[in-house]
């Protein structure tokens, strides 16, 4: 069993490093994108081997769903921008100073220049070698597992990772939600969204699949959220699954995005941080410290925060996929 596990680890790691290498060596960006999705899949297996099913769940939701879709839609956007420039649409900005070949670069990266090879290789090798040597000389440390274990009773939940995320280190998680929100604010500040590139997909297959998948995704999302209090799962994973379902819906009717009204959408994306902050400030006022809970109320409050966070994360991920801000936001 042990020998087999070692073999599995070795093959897996070789695969991960190999895929990453080929991904970064690709001249064709679509190939790089597919390889990156595969990289995410193998990474999820690595997290499983490191006894981190929570991370594997998140990686599955992100690697298989969100990142792949994001990369592909980005490549298509780049391609359609290039095509518009070639066809000489009005309103095109002045031509690129780097010359006629620049057009090619949208989805194709020429092999790197030879002159950077030696310095880059040396630098990367030195950094890698130093890191490996350092890591090999580290003694095993217990980490904080015993401390967390000793305080689980007071955390309000039964799953240690959730306890750390939403109770012991709730501040980090709050800021994580804030970062998701800031990324969206940044994407929105770049301008209104334009049409999502999409071509017609005739036939009953796609709508049929969606009719099956979207409800299942919603149920799974809720299940993962609920499971988070006692088993791997939680707000982010659930939000990512629901977000992926939303992305599917957007892909089903890319030309007919619902005219999202500004105010409810704003409230939706801020719900996670807002609820979290209110609970945190209440804790401060009630004497449990900022972001602290009364023990008896810890579980319901954590669930409340997680539900709001799931909603916000899902909405934000869909909005990040659509990229620019909806017209309703400027009204």
């Amino acid at each position, binding site marked *: *069993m042990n020998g*087999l*596990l070692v073999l*599995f680890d070795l*093959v897996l790691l*070789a*695969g991960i490093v*190999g895929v990453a290498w*080929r991904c970064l060596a690709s001249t*064709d960006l*679509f*190939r790089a994108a*597919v390889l990156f*999705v*595969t990289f995410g*899949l*193998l990474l*999820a*297996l690595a997290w*499983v081997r490191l*006894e981190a*099913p929570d991370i*594997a*769940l998140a990686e*599955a939701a992100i690697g298989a*769903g*969100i990142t*792949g*879709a994001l990369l*592909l*839609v980005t490549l*298509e956007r780049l*391609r359609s921008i290039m095509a518009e420039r070639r066809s000489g649409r009005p309103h095109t900005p002045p031509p690129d100073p780097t010359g006629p070949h620049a057009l090619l670069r949208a989805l194709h990266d020429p092999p790197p220049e030879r002159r950077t090879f030696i310095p880059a290789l040396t630098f990367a090798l030195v950094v890698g070698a130093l890191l490996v040597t350092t890591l090999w000389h580290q003694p095993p440390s217990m980490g904080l597992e015993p401390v967390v274990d000793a305080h689980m009773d007071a955390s309000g939940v039964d799953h240690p990772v959730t306890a750390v995320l939403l109770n012991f280190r709730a501040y980090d998680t709050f800021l994580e939600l804030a970062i998701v929100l800031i990324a969206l604010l940044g994407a929105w500040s770049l301008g209104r969204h334009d049409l*999502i*590139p*999409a*071509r*017609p*997909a*005739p036939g009953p297959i*796609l*709508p049929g*699949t*969606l009719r099956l*998948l979207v409800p299942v*995704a919603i149920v*799974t999302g809720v299940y*993962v959220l609920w*499971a988070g209090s006692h*088993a*791997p*799962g939680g707000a982010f*994973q659930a939000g990512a*699954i629901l977000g*992926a379902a939303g*992305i*599917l819906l957007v*892909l*089903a009717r890319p030309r*007919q995005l619902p005219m999202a009204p500004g105010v409810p959408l704003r409230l939706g994306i801020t719900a996670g941080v807002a609820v979290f902050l209110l609970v945190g400030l209440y804790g401060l006022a009630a004497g449990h410290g900022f972001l602290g809970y009364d023990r008896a109320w810890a579980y319901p409050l954590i669930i409340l925060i997680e539900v709001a966070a799931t909603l916000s994360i899902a909405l934000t991920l869909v909005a990040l996929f659509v990229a620019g801000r909806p017209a309703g936001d400027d009204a």
Partner: protein
Amino acid sequence: MNVFYLSAALFLLGTILLGLVRVLRGPGSGDRMLAAQLFGTTGVTILLLLSLALEESALMDVALVFALLAVVAAVAFVRQHGLPEPPDTPIHSQQAESAEPEEPNDDR
């Protein structure tokens, strides 16, 4: 029995690594996407096997999420890849014509 599951998982991991050749070679994007689709399925199977081999029932949920979301990248790909349509690409023009140009599939 665990050893058996683990060997099966290892075998499947090997098929993924072999299948990578198709992603690298292409030649078309469709081939690459198909290979990625196969990897998704294989990954789900590996997770199921590992959940038995490592006796970690939560991996079943991971496999479920994988199965659910494998379709997102595929749909994103087929919906979008190859845009915009260059004027002369339709090879079998009858079929292209019969396909309605705008959103025929709205399930309303």
